[in-house]
């Protein structure tokens, strides 16, 4: 499949941004910095989705991840980390064992990637323009039950988060 030079440049640029930002997320010593790099990763990811002809997903990615999730995490951090933020994101004792396992995962992935005949899987057709209407139709017809379940899940998560995070004293007051 032919690809334009812009796509190639865009892919490599985005890929480097994603990997670099993700690495910084992990290695940053300040948790707030980590979250900022996370937002950067998410935005770059949205770009990557655009190169994959998934404009709706890209929009969702920006809205949900870069917007909602990152903000929520920042609020969470602000509720928890009160004093100094400098050394809030350190490694634990299993840095090297964890590194070893990750290396194994990478190695295995490489082996599998090498063993798989990717070219045979690729289909001939191109993705149609404007995916939103297709996705919308599918979500309301074939995948309506998972869709509703997801909605229910969000509701439950909402209530659960409120119940869990509610202050004990407030609860005690409400009880009186």
């Amino acid at each position, binding site marked *: 499949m032919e690809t334009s030079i812009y796509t190639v440049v865009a892919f490599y640029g985005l890929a480097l941004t994603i990997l670099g930002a993700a690495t910084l997320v992990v290695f940053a010593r300040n948790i707030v910095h980590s979250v900022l790099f996370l937002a950067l990763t998410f935005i770059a990811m949205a770009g990557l989705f655009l190169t994959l002809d998934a404009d709706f997903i890209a929009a969702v990615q920006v809205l949900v991840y870069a917007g909602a999730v990152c903000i929520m995490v920042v609020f969470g951090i602000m509720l928890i980390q009160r004093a100094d933020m400098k050394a809030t994101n350190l490694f*634990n004792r*299993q840095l090297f*064992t*964890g590194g070893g*396992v990750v290396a*194994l*995962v990478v190695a*295995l992935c490489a*082996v*599998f990637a090498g*063993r798989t005949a990717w070219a045979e899987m690729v289909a001939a057709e191109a993705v149609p323009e404007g995916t939103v209407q297709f996705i919308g139709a599918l979500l309301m017809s074939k995948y309506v039950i998972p869709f509703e379940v997801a909605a229910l899940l969000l509701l439950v998560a909402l209530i659960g988060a409120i119940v869990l995070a509610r202050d004990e004293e407030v609860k005690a007051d409400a009880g009186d």
Partner: protein
Amino acid sequence: MLVEFALYHAWLVPLLPALAFGVIVFLTRPWPKLSAIVAVGSMAVACFFATLAAYGVFTNHEFVEKPLVYATRWFSLGLPGMPEVQIDVGVQLDPTSAMMLFMVSFIATFIFLYSIGYMEGDPGFSVFFSYLSLFGASMLLLVISSNLLQMFVAWGLVGLCSYLLIGFYSHKISAREAAKKAFVTCRVADFGLLLGLLALQIVFGTLNLTELSEKIAHFEEYTTFGMLTLIAVLVFIGPIGKSGQFPLHVWLPDAMEGPTPVSALIHAATMVVAGVYLVGRTLFLFHEVPSAMQLVAVTGGFTALFAATIAITQREIKRILAYSTVSQLGYMMLALGVGSLTASMFHLWTHAFFKALMFLGAGSVLHALHHKADVWEMGGLYKKMPITTWTFVIGGLAIAGIPPFAGFWSKDEILVATLSEGHYVLFAVGAFTAFLTAFYMWRMIFLAFFGEEKPENHPHESPWTMTVPLVVLAVGALGAGWVGTPWHNVWAEWIFFGHPHHGPVNYGAMLLSIVLAAAGIYLAYMLYLKDAKKKRARRLAEWFGPVYRMLYNKYYIDELYLWFNHALVDGTARLMYLFDIYVVDGIVNGIGGFAKLSGDGLRVFQSGRLQNYALIFFLGVLAVAVLMAFTGPSAASLVLGGVK
């Protein structure tokens, strides 16, 4: 009319005391006098019916050849692949059972009456009478059984009553121990009997006495001679225990821990003769097996002599009587072993009277002396207790075998039967035992009732409820044998096995037995009455020191059993204990230890830290991924427990 009714409703006889048992237990227990009246009354009515039934049997000669049998089906058991088992429960009335029915109910009535006086003031008065009633019911049921299984049930019930009554004074350790000993010993024997009965049922398909006697008469159609011998020996083990034959006699002397009426009723007159009765009932089985007959005869003869020698040295009045009972039971077995049902049942009949009499007399003495049992501490009781003394003397004359008292005729019958069957050694044993019997009985009588009075004793004659039975039984001890005199033997015309036996009158044997009995009494007189200081008796005991001690300690049989128990049973138990501790527990503890060790090893992995778990989890994921990649999905699904 009434006789007819009694004949065809003989099951009423055991039923009445059984009802009395229920009434006492559930209704009249708080009122001792009422309980006693219920028990004695029901037994008296039962005795009345039994007498009528016995009268009916003994006036109709048909019943000798063809017993009156009526039964109802108790249960039948059909198992696939096996012939159907049908068990009846019923009544078999023939002269033997009619005699027993009358004898048991008659003696029981008077012993019940006697118990009112003897047990007066005892806190367990009502309970005692309920037990006695239950015993009476079971014993009468045993007697009229038409079926060996029914008989075995009653056999077990009388064993239970024996246990309850021996241990009646349950505050005494010795009484509890004696009860336990009696029960366990009898159960050991009953196991043999049960095996024998099972074998009979399996081989012959029935336990009905009449059917069995017909089938065993030509047993070759059913089984081999060896099997029949085995069955006979197994069946005989039961009577060995119940009738106190050597080597299972040990429980009977200890059973004297029970109240004296119990000793008189159960351990002298009725229950202990159940073994003899059972052998008599199944004599058709033993008759086919000469070796079994031999066994019965030798066991009986040996027991008779053995127990008599022990009785010579004993000091407690009831113990002497107990060994004498064992000895007399040996006589009965001996008679059965030589094939004379007549003589055996005759001796059973007379023995019931004079031995019950003597036990009740002993009870009267104990009652008067506040349970001081050693005959050496008694003496001169005849002045204060005339009725007891003279009835006891009648009993002593009867058991010693002085004519015309009852014991003479029956003992003579046994000796003659032994002689006429050609068992000369057993005849000698029997005759010598007769001499010993006369000696030890009169030793006891001279020591206890005559001689010098002991100033520390304050005896008094017993109340009428106790003396009336004594007098009645004394009349029995005097006259019960007259039905079987050698000149006109009515007894032998009614009770016999095979054909009635009419031997010529054997004056030689008669003379010998009189001489031996008289010699025994004279010897006792010389040693224990004439020689007031008993110097000679003591000197004799010293001369025969080891023998005397051996006899006094009952041949150390109890010690032998104890040793056997300790060495063998406890030793095995000890071994098993060690096995259990070291091997069985070792395995269990080893498994536990293994689990603990492996847990100790594996707990390293349970750090409690989430990320550690995640790490291990991912290692597992990697392993599964590798497995799936390099061996295909089926092997991985195998590892994952069949998840497809």
